């Protein structure tokens, strides 16, 4: 399973947008992809973008207003399901030419984009691209999609936190039931025992843990328990 542990630890230390840029740019190695892009639009329309694409491609893209014809943008704007570029319609002349230019600029011939819907209409798009063959890409997306979804949302949470300003930075707060669930696991109970002790079903327990994990920006349950412990959120 892909854990991205060192990336999440770096992300945890991020305090400024410059730090965040550096953390995002380092992701392409850890994710084994050619490029990464993170692009966010907040509720007031302010934009923030970080990418490993060649600067001349970014300039050309913006200068030619390619967002109008880019099938990825068209497919992800106001959406929320992850998109493999292979499912998009590249058959039109404008889209075909655009793709050809992108490939020449080193973007790669494969891509996967994750639209992110945050609070109060905030929207972001996280993309990875690659020069893999079709077979390799199918295997890659099967293995990495979950990690990509989580990593992209954690990047987005961090960007929102920085935008709010440090003096208002969110301290993670868990509801009592989320704390209970993580506490049981920290005490060494397995899921069945923890659910039993809390008089809830195992699926309910899983959802409480999943919800807590997102708030703690953790990749897996062990990581979530460790983070909650470090932040003094558990009574053990």
């Amino acid at each position: 399973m892909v854990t991205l542990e060192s990336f999440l630890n770096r992300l945890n230390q991020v305090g400024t947008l410059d730090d965040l840029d550096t953390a995002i740019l380092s992701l392409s190695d850890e994710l084994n992809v050619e490029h990464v892009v993170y692009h966010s639009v907040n509720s007031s329309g302010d934009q923030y973008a970080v990418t490993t694409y060649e600067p001349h491609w970014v300039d050309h893209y913006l200068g030619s207003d390619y967002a109008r014809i880019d099938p990825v943008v068209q497919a992800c704007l106001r959406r929320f399901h992850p998109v493999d570029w292979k499912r998009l319609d590249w058959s039109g002349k404008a889209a075909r030419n655009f793709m050809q230019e992108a490939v020449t600029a080193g973007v790669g011939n494969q891509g996967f984009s994750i639209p992110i819907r945050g609070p109060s209409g905030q929207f972001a798009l996280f993309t990875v691209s690659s020069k893999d063959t079709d077979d390799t890409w199918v295997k890659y997306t099967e293995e990495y999609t979950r990690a990509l979804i989580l990593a992209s949302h954690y990047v987005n949470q961090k960007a929102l936190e920085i935008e709010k300003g440090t003096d208002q930075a969110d301290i993670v707060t868990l509801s009592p039931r989320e704390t209970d669930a993580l506490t049981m696991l920290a005490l060494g109970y397995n899921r069945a025992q923890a659910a039993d002790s809390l008089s809830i079903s195992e699926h309910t327990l899983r959802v409480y843990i999943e919800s807590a994990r997102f708030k703690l920006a953790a990749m897996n349950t062990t990581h979530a328990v460790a983070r909650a412990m470090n932040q003094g959120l558990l009574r053990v």
Partner: protein
Amino acid sequence: MLRYIYADELETLPRLKAGMFKDRAAQFSQRLGWEVTVDEDGFERDSYDDLNPLYILWERPDGTHGGSLRLLPTTGDTMINDHFTELTEGVKIQSPLIWECTRFCLARGAGANVSSALMLGVLEIGLKSHLDHIVGVFDARMIRVYARVGWGPTVLGTLGTGREAISAGLWPVEQSYRPRLLSKAGISSEVSNHWYGRSFGAIKEQFEAVA
């Protein structure tokens, strides 16, 4: 036929759109007696319909609405987190791996296969999007309907009694439910994949063709 459609694309299917909002009025306002808003067109709509949700619709052979439901990601605003945390022991359920399903609705006369087909649609998009769970808020009388579709929810909590009872439930997104849902819906795996591809695009090898 199953269709997966975001709200901003509904205009392209005016008949299905009107059918869905009118059948929602019939189900939620008239039959279940919920306090919902029905506008002058006879459409039942709420503020979550304005957040560009993803709808899954069952289109009958004659093009009319057979049933539908509504999906939203729990990282944004959802009905359960805004209004029903009493049903989840105070936990705001938020995760990129959990989406919310609401407004499950059947047209009058729709058979049990339509319920199963709609939930099959939820499982298909859930599996393709690598989700862990679907969470939903529904009339407690729906628990029996859901149990019969082949993919019943774990009930997280119920508020109120009788006609007033509202429940929150949880569906684990797991491949193992797919064969049963396909069989109850009377749909083959290939056909279901085809419908998914019609809405979201089929996997194509076109980059090589242009490169």
